[in-house]
């Protein structure tokens, strides 16, 4: 298997198997992040490929001062954030469309615990903007200050987006 440094050195020497080992070790974590940030498995799949292609090209800049997992996570997060920003022009329109949709669909209250799959699907249905803030804060564990910095919004905006996301999830999951 080899250490991260060994794997990186082998990748740089053209060993695709070493890169596959890195991929197998980290793909799930980054794919999960990409799917949730993008809001769809299809886009998550494209993002994952782009992330690892970029990682392959940039392996030379991995200096070992962070773990390889941390380095890849940062690269993936930046890539996802670029993607999110590129969609920002569309964000407001989509947000209002989905808000309207959710407002028209009051779900009956469910007393059963939240199923993992239901939550995943509900997160995908969150409006652009509040979904990313929710994923970064409530799933990935960043604080509001960090979320604000990552998304280029104020700390207070991060809070209001996360709170909005939770309330929408509550409605989508039949817990209004």
């Amino acid at each position, binding site marked *: 298997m080899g250490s991260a440094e060994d794997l990186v050195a*082998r990748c740089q020497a*053209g*060993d*695709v*198997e*070493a*890169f*596959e080992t890195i*991929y197998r070790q980290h*793909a*799930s*974590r980054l*794919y*999960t992040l990409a*799917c949730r940030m993008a809001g769809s*498995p*299809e*886009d*998550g*799949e*494209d993002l*994952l*490929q*782009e992330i*690892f*292609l970029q990682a*392959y090209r940039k392996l030379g800049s991995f200096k070992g001062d962070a773990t390889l997992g941390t380095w890849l996570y940062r690269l993936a997060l930046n890539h996802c954030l670029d993607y999110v920003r*590129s*969609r920002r*022009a*569309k964000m407001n*329109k989509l947000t209002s*469309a989905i808000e309207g949709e959710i407002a028209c669909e009051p779900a009956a209250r469910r007393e059963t*615990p*939240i199923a*993992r799959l239901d*939550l*995943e699907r509900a997160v995908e249905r969150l409006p652009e903007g509040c979904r990313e803030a*929710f994923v970064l804060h*409530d*799933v990935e564990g960043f604080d509001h200050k960090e979320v604000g910095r990552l998304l280029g919004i104020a700390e207070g905006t991060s*809070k*209001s987006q*996360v*709170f909005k996301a*939770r*309330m929408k*999830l*509550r409605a989508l*999951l039949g*817990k209004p």
Partner: protein
Amino acid sequence: MHPNEDAIHAYVDGSLGAAERTGIDRHVASCASCRQLLEDLREILRAAKALELREPPARVWSRLERAITLERDDAEPVARRLQPSGMASDTGPAEAGHDRRASGARGPASGARTLQPSGTASDTGRAEAGHDRRATWLAAAAAVVLATAVGLRFMPSGGESVRSGAPATTTVAEGDRAESVETELRQAEAHYEKAIKGLEQIASAERNALDPRTAATLQRNLAVIDQAITESRAAVRSEPASEPAQQSLLENFKSKIALLQDTVALINEMRKGNEAGAARIVSGLKQKGD
């Protein structure tokens, strides 16, 4: 009087001061609706923390491996790499070496994997080598076809137009926007159709590598997606400005490309003799078909 919702969110986050916390504790003890909100938010947070990792489809690595190999071997002319006619017999050592790399096999030094099924000895002959090389050009051809579609992200109604592949439109006056969106959609559609056609050619030419049941499952899934494409295309034609209709059409194109990619990846794994890889892909196909 109810505390405001923000205070309740801050309460579940643990970011309220002691005095405010006590105030909310006192209130929820006698207010069923605020107590319910508090419990619901806690449950959502618990569930969010407990979300599991997702496994990416097997085709992502196949696609990535191909892209990396093509990038690494960029110096070699693409036409030569995609040349299926050289797969059978008379390639020299250098080319055979390239073929091993490109098809995912490793040299003796790294040694962890070969393309031969179940550890067959290296002298199983030219047929094996032919399979290796066939798998190579097959996957490489699929990668090139997909280069027209990967990263193609049409954004309806005035967002970023596309990532690659289709020409970007410049900013236009509001009155011309609908026409511009339709033009972009048509361009994106043309790119998807081109990619699909290329993949279909590869998949149908190599379909005899699949067992009949898997081929039938694939055919059934393709028929469902084709029907969805027909319906969403009709919706776009009758309402060209409808975002849901545009999105639906593009999503259906992407689904078809993904299924064809799975087909090519599956054929490739079977030709390489990688039963585990093939089983992983078939399992994904069955889940989608269920």
